[in-house]
């Protein structure tokens, strides 16, 4: 006796959160069943392995059918085929677009192209995340990128509007898209100690202050690209290093602003000149695309100097709490 066909269709689509997670994590039905068995569900419910297998298959099939809609979340809201309560819809979308820290660190700043997709095998091996899950995450990044790439207006808002993500997740995606668009190098060994959160923080500030959208929110409102004029203007910063008066003025202003807010304040004050020189050197080179890409490498290499490696926290990141 073999089961040829085995389905369950509810008027309200049943979503099992645990199975959804297993599916998102890219486990095969067999692995998922094994994991569920290990969770002790059989003992709790008195079910048999066959029942579990059938249930898992069924959920997987449902998710597989929903996946097409999850690619364009507004469709999930408007579609008529699956009746899903709004809270469940939100959960489906949020979880589907969630990503692994380990994975995002691997692809952050890389071009979301076929070439990168080929490397997913290696990433999967390296991070221990299943290839399936890597593909989903990568495809999510790429899909969001494609949709918001040419759009005007706030990047976060665009992501939120077209993918119905939570504010937090939308910000993360904005950072990912921003990094991918500008191809910032984040994979170098020196940068490994930085978390995605660190980069996302930078991305947010850069979007706010360095992009076309930042300058004038009306004309040519683009959050994706850095404002070329602004980068050009950065060349002028050389005076901060060249001119002794300006250097001192800069120092006093920065110190006033940061006093009491920085754990490494005294070191910073002591090394201000070196730091400032490093930063200005990085800034003035930003007219070249290559240097833009290496922005973070350069920052870590040149700016923190003795600070970064010492304290594990570069000064251009949100201040570590005072201890």
């Amino acid at each position: 006796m073999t089961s040829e066909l085995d389905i369950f269709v509810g008027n309200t689509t049943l979503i099992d959160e645990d199975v959804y997670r297993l599916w998102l994590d890219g486990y095969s039905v067999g692995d998922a069943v094994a994991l569920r068995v290990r969770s002790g569900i059989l003992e709790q419910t008195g079910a048999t392995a066959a029942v579990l297998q059938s249930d898992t298959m069924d959920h997987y099939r449902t998710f597989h059918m929903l996946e097409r809609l999850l690619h364009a979340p507004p469709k999930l809201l408007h579609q008529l085929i699956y009746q899903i309560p709004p809270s469940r819809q939100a959960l489906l979308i949020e979880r589907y677009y969630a990503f692994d820290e380990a994975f995002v660190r691997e692809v952050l700043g890389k071009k979301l192209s076929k070439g990168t997709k080929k490397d997913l095998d290696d990433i999967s091996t390296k991070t221990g995340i299943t290839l399936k899950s890597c593909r989903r995450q990568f495809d999510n990044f790429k899909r969001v990128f494609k949709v918001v790439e040419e759009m005007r207006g706030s990047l976060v808002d665009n992501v939120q509007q077209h993918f119905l993500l939570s504010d937090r997740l939308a910000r993360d995606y904005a950072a990912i898209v921003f990094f991918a668009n500008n191809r910032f190098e984040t994979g170098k060994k020196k940068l490994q100690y930085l978390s995605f959160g660190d980069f996302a923080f930078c991305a947010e500030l850069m979007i706010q202050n360095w992009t076309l959208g930042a300058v004038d929110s009306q004309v040519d409102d683009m959050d994706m690209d850095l404002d070329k004029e602004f980068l050009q203007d950065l060349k002028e910063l050389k005076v901060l290093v060249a001119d002794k008066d300006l250097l001192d003025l800069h120092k006093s202003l920065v110190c006033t602003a940061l006093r009491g807010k920085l754990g490494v304040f005294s070191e910073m004050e002591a090394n201000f000149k070196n730091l400032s020189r490093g930063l200005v050197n990085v800034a003035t080179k930003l007219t070249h695309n290559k240097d833009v890409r290496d922005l973070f490498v350069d920052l870590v290499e040149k700016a923190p100097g003795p600070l970064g490696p010492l304290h594990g926290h570069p000064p251009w990141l949100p201040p570590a709490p005072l201890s």
Partner: protein
Amino acid sequence: MPGKLKVKIVAGRHLPVMDRASDLTDAFVEVKFGNTTFKTDVYPKSLNPQWNSEWFKFEVDDEDLQDEPLQITVLDHDTYSANDAIGKVYIDIDPLLYSEAATVISGWFPIYDTIHGIRGEINVVVKVDLFNDLNRFRQSSCGVKFFCTTSIPKCYRAVIIHGFVEELVVNEDPEYQWIDRIRTPRASNEARQRLISLMSGELQRKIGLKVLEMRGNAVVGYLQCFDLEGESGLVVRAIGTACTLDKLSSPAAFLPACNSPSKEMKESPLVHPPSHGCRSTHNSPIHTATGSRLTQNFSVSVPTLIYTGMGSGSAGKEGGPFKALLRQQTQSALEQRGGSPHRFCRRREFPFFTLTAFPPGFLVHVGGVVSARSVKLLDRIHNPAFVGIMGNTRSYKLLDWNSFNSDEPETRDAWWAEIRQEIKSHAKALGCHAVVGYSESTSICEEVCILSASGTAAVLNPRFLQDGTVEGCLEQRLEENLPAGCGFCHIPYDELNMPFPAHLTYCYNCRKQKVPDVLFTTIDLPTDATVIGKGCLIQARLCRLKKKAQAEANATAISNLLPFMEYEVHTQLMNKLKLKGMNALFGLRIQITVGENMLMGLASATGVYLAALPTPGGIQIAGKTPNDGSYEQHISHMQKKINDTIAKNKELYEINPPEISEEIIGSPIPEPRQRSRLLRSQSESSDEVTELDLSHGKKDAFVLEIDDTDAMEDVHSLLTDVPPPSGFYSCNTEIMPGINNWTSEIQMFTSVRVIRLSSLNLTNHALNKNFNDLCENLLKSLYFKLRSMIPCCLCHVNFTVSLPEDELIQVTVTAVAITFDKNQALQTTKAHVEKSLQRASTDNEELLQFPLELCSDSLPSHPFPPAKEHLESASSNSGIPAAQRATSVDYSSFADRCSSWIELIKLKAQTIRRGSIKTTVTVEKTSPMGEGNFRNRSAAPCANSTVGVVKMTPLSFIPGAKITKYLGIINMFFIRETTSLREEGGVSGFLHAFIAEVFAMVRAHVAALGGNAVVSYIMKQCVFMENPNKNQAQCLINVSGDAVVFARESELEVVSTQQPAANCQPACTGGEVTT
């Protein structure tokens, strides 16, 4: 021109990409009704076109309005080649033809393609202007309301329940036409879908005409079925119960949209006096039936069982001769028909009711289950040639076609008439004049067809019936006053002149009347029945191998097997019932499915412990070789296991009848001379009946004899049925007896399983085991899937078995899981009983107050008692007068290891009120609010999503809510086909997606009608065929239900603050039932 149909195409969304180059679509829409077609402009390059068309107006006959669906086709414009079809929407405009139902159909409909499934949505607005046309030769029956619900719909009251209406239409199946060889699968599927839609419309209209003739205004318990007879054609048949309903909220009498039947019938030239039967004379396919017709078609009647109480009946004894006997009977029945064509014009032919729940007081006594089966050979339907091109043009008319052409409907009609006649005579034999909970079904395999009908013989209260079908004997009984809750159990016939010997005792409730020891019925548990503990789903499952054979040999083989199967099924049911410690079955449905090389039997019912019936005795096991020591030990071990199971079940289902000392009961009724007796299908000729005494020495226990391995396995299988996990209950009736505090969460689902049998182990036992495992595993899966809803109950569990191929078994289950409040469930106190009794009586008053002016106006001769008497009787005894009923035993000689079961006990119990919402006053109080408000309210919780929630349930009510309006019947038929089965996720992926799409289309139609739920939803057919080698599959699904608007009780309460809390509270907090 009695009607103008107006259609506006507003917009589309989520259309598929039809032009690969641009990734866009140039969509336009064709709107077709009858022979008229309109087109919208092409909306270029968009997947979300905004057509905003003008109003397309169709001027049509109301007859066409009833028959034809509105057909909307979305196409992609192509300048150079033919336009590509994106998909279609069929809209049944019938709901717009009643005055009270929907006034407009407006909303987003999924665009459906039989090959690709749903492809985007289209926004359509449909309206109908009807003109009154009083003097026309009436062919239409606009205004007659149809309900799938098998009880009186919640916001109506029954003025008169007229009785049985039936009709069938036949056509050639487009799938089997010559043209099918050259047209695309899509064209063929669409031709089929459209034809069936047309045939259902026609059928409904014809039934409507019959109802109007009977002076009714509605059909309740409408059940329409398709028989896909393959080569021999397509039969669409329907049965229902004609009623005159009155809307509770409106004090005025009901007047249908285009015509008021009650007034206008007088003017219509074609209408017969009300006493004339239910057949319309001008377009009924039958006028006379000839005997020769039937003899041409090979037919075998199958001996019928009457499941009353104990024992099973079947004519197994006369294995060989029974056929001849039955043929003879068939013949004689036929002669009767043929000989007196006037019969059709005389009074009601069949006193059948498709209802399963009744207004209080309607059901007087229940006699037991009556069923009849017959095996027929299908013949090709001969059609005129021009029907062959029907797929493309519409140059034909079904009605005309039927009348001049095929005599085929005659044959089919005669077949059914024959079966109904049999049912009727069985009911008579049980001392009953009516059959309730009546249903009909077929199972077809190649050219063999099994027709089945079953129902519950009953005695009804004549005051609900229009004419005096009820015989005089009844009236005296009506005068007897009896306590509520047990009246229906009392035997309906004289104990001294019992048609079947049965073991009778005095009713354990009232101690005045006789009751049988076990009661089987096809109806729902009456609202006022007194039950102890909870109920449970009981299933009997059976397979029988059969040799592959052709034509007549095949039919003979099947009819030889049937009685054995029926007997086995019955035995299993009885054993399982005993094992559960219960004494009555409700909602019994026995399905026999025929396949190439096997027969399957599946019986489902809900077991309960009726307080009025005696406690069932245990099951005793007896071995045949008592001297063997180890064997003896084994037997006693088994016995212990069985006893333990019974004890466990009693605990599980909370069956603890109070002990009553023997004296109170009085001495048992003198034993009838013989306890079991064979009942043949020919119940009229009772003198012929062979009498067998199979009773065992022990009177109070049912004895199972283990004489071979078969029997051993039977016992084992008894014990392998696993009870549902704690917190779960299941039943196949509307609600679970013993649970009454439903909360509002419901989940309707359909689950389908197909297993492939390995051909090696095809023995009856292996087969039985496989089938049993299949059903058990399916149930287990359901319990697991729905575990988050605990505590909950699976209600209306409906299993359907089909045998699509040699080694495939398909089981389809549709049910609804309803949560309930565990804490409240514990209160089963007497106070509740009293309260519910009180409520019952107030309900009665509301329900029974007929608007007498109206009645006397339209029906001067109807036999209602004066209103005052009415109220008195209604409030004093909950409307159920007493009488008696009995159980019968029918045993056959091949019953080699079973014997009789007879037992005694005593008990007492609480009354359970059935979960019907009958807070009549609420309706009136809230009506000013209008449903616009209701709709807004129900839409409010899902404000985030643009799609409103539409609930679906196979039940006739929605827990925690009140149905405020019925919008019309939903009856949809879909075909889905694929030539890329693997790509769509295999058979499971294909069917899963299709069923989800069917649900979506049902919901969309309901939402467009302005509704927010479908009640009495049923998937009547799910025919799945696959050909994995060709990567193909096809599936046909037919669903129906009633579209309704409901409002949450809590919302209603806010509005109707003046509503006495007592009346409203139980309903809104704990569902609508009190115990």
